[in-house]
């Protein structure tokens, strides 16, 4: 693929994206419009994240891609391959060894460090979108810091269901100013957004928005004093590695109601098993089978 520039995008476009990223870092949680390009993968499949990664990567980087916490899901494989071909950067599955991590729907379990950048793929960057469909209105609401509608929504949840019925893409407030959509991560991950040593960048390609959290930004999940935010996960330990503190996927194992719970973060789970941790279902047979075409 020598006919394309390093990391696919031309330098002019990367400069434009970097300007948006810098503006985003300067105004944490503010959605910066940017002239998103048409990428060779579909909108909605990570084009925002891919453009942010392309503008962020340098040849010395080591790149990791996860989707739903896993390195081996099809779209993560596809995006990793894209940058292997167009940027020739080294790639890794180990969270701790990566300098840039592109993610969809999860924050890795392994705590991030100051020399890392986490790039989120964002489908709908506007936290107020499903309360007010018009962009012209929601931009006004942000500039006036008019977030009453969101509080009313959370309150109505409580009055109807006795709890806040939002379990992912749970809205947060950044440094006491902007209400932000953390992308559809489970609310279990929300506490990791705050005070994080790594740079967190959010890219929404189709919606043409970039926003950012500089290191050690204060990020608070919206709640009420008497209904405080609660990070939740399945009430189990991982059946493969025994971890009790990681976010779990539920896997159906037979048609008799059988199911097990496994870490959604595949690197975390493998690391624990390599270190000798064992869950109830982990036996010595091969860990993985290949999906069929």
């Amino acid at each position, binding site marked *: 693929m020598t006919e*394309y520039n390093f990391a696919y995008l031309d330098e002019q476009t990367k400069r434009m994206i970097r300007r948006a990223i810098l503006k985003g870092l300067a105004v944490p949680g503010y959605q910066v*419009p*940017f*002239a*998103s390009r*048409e*990428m060779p993968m*579909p*909108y*909605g499949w990570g*084009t925002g994240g891919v453009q942010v990664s392309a503008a962020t990567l340098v040849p010395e980087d080591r790149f990791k891609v996860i*989707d*739903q*916490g896993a390195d*081996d*899901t*099809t*779209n993560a*494989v596809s995006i990793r*391959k894209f940058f292997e071909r167009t940027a020739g950067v080294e790639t890794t599955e180990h969270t701790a060894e990566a300098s840039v991590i592109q993610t*969809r729907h*999860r924050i890795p379990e392994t705590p991030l460090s100051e020399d890392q950048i986490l790039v989120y793929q964002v*489908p709908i960057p506007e936290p107020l979108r499903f309360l007010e469909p*018009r*962009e*012209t209105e929601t931009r006004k609401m942000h500039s006036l810091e008019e977030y009453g509608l969101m509080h009313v929504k959370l309150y109505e949840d409580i009055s*109807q*269901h*006795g*709890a806040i*019925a*939002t*379990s*992912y893409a749970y809205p947060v407030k950044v440094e006491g100013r902007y209400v932000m959509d953390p992308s*559809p*991560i*489970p609310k*279990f991950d929300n506490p990791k957004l705050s005070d994080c040593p790594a740079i967190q960048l959010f890219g929404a390609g189709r919606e*043409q928005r970039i926003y950012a959290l500089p290191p050690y930004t204060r990020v608070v999940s919206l709640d009420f004093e008497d209904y405080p935010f609660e990070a*939740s*996960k*399945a009430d189990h330990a991982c059946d*493969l590695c025994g971890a009790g503190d990681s*976010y*779990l*996927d*539920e*896997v159906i*194992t037979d048609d008799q109601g059988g199911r*097990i719970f496994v870490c*959604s973060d595949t690197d975390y789970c493998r690391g624990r098993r390599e270190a000798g941790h064992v869950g109830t*279902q982990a*036996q010595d*047979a*091969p*860990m*993985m089978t*290949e*999906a069929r*075409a």
Partner: protein
Amino acid sequence: MYVAVKGGERAIDNAHAWLAEERRGDLSVAELSVAQIREQLSLAVNRVMVEGSLYDPDLAALAIKQARGDLIEAIFLIRAYRTTLPRFGASRPVDTAQMACDRRISATFKDAPGGQVLGPTFDYTHRLLDFKLAAEGAAPEAPSAAPQDGPVPHITGFLNREGLIQTEAASDDTPPDLTREPMELPAERPLRLQALSRGDEGFVLSLAYSTQRGYARNHAFVGELRIGAVAVEMDIPELGFAIEIGEITLTECETVNQFKGSKTEPPQFTRGYGLVFGQTERKAISMALVDRALRWKELGEDNQGAPAQDEEFVLMHCDNIQATGFLEHIKLPHYVDFQSELELVRKLRREAQDGAGAAPVQEAAE
């Protein structure tokens, strides 16, 4: 014993190989050439050029072949390729009054200078399957005549002489480019026209149809529809003048719309405008109707709350590459969000069993 499924690279590679085999189809049937598609499926090629925003019949034909005839997929291929092209500059505005017309009709005047020219149209064909085409036959031949001499002035120009139609203000401003700048709303008319021109044909058609059925009806007549070749000229700074760099085929539609006048405008006819690559007249007419509907604010008309009047609704949803990408992304894994929903529903059900309560409703997966 649980064995986790790994969505390996090999699965993707095999899927791609299978796709390539399916694309070729039965090997005992001759392979389609790109030239055959370009020449014999030219209306499909035109649509791909219009919505792909790239005038290149050979590349559009290649994209159609690669996409197995899925035109939205072909448009996507062209758009992604277009992103990588350097931009040398901008042409001068093309002059459609100088068009070498293959087709030129007006629904508002029986005859006018330049005449009515039907051209290669389906309009009066009887839609009966022609089984002769199933067999290979001799090349059809159409009678020919000498091209008409003289200019083919725009029909709306005649109305303009009497002041009966609203005059469009001329402007030398550089129009915005929605492929280079993020869409900002409210949008000026040049940006709206740009978005409509590359918008999905089906979406724009349905919106136009909705205005005809009363959702912001604007009484459109096809003042003129013309199809033909125009010269593309570009200023070359080193030369100090413009030279012709090529020729493209365009379809242009101007509608003449009834208008009773408003607080700010006298009673007069108004216009809707459509301009697209190639012979793509359904799209050009649709575009003109939607353009007119979107002009309600500028003309001081009432907002009837109709979809075709809603600029944000139209512009944010007319792009089929954005739409299909986001629609189809729900095929991607959503285990994580779904798991969090599972936990929530179980929790709420537990609580509901203790007291009264209802299952929660949340937006569809993202």
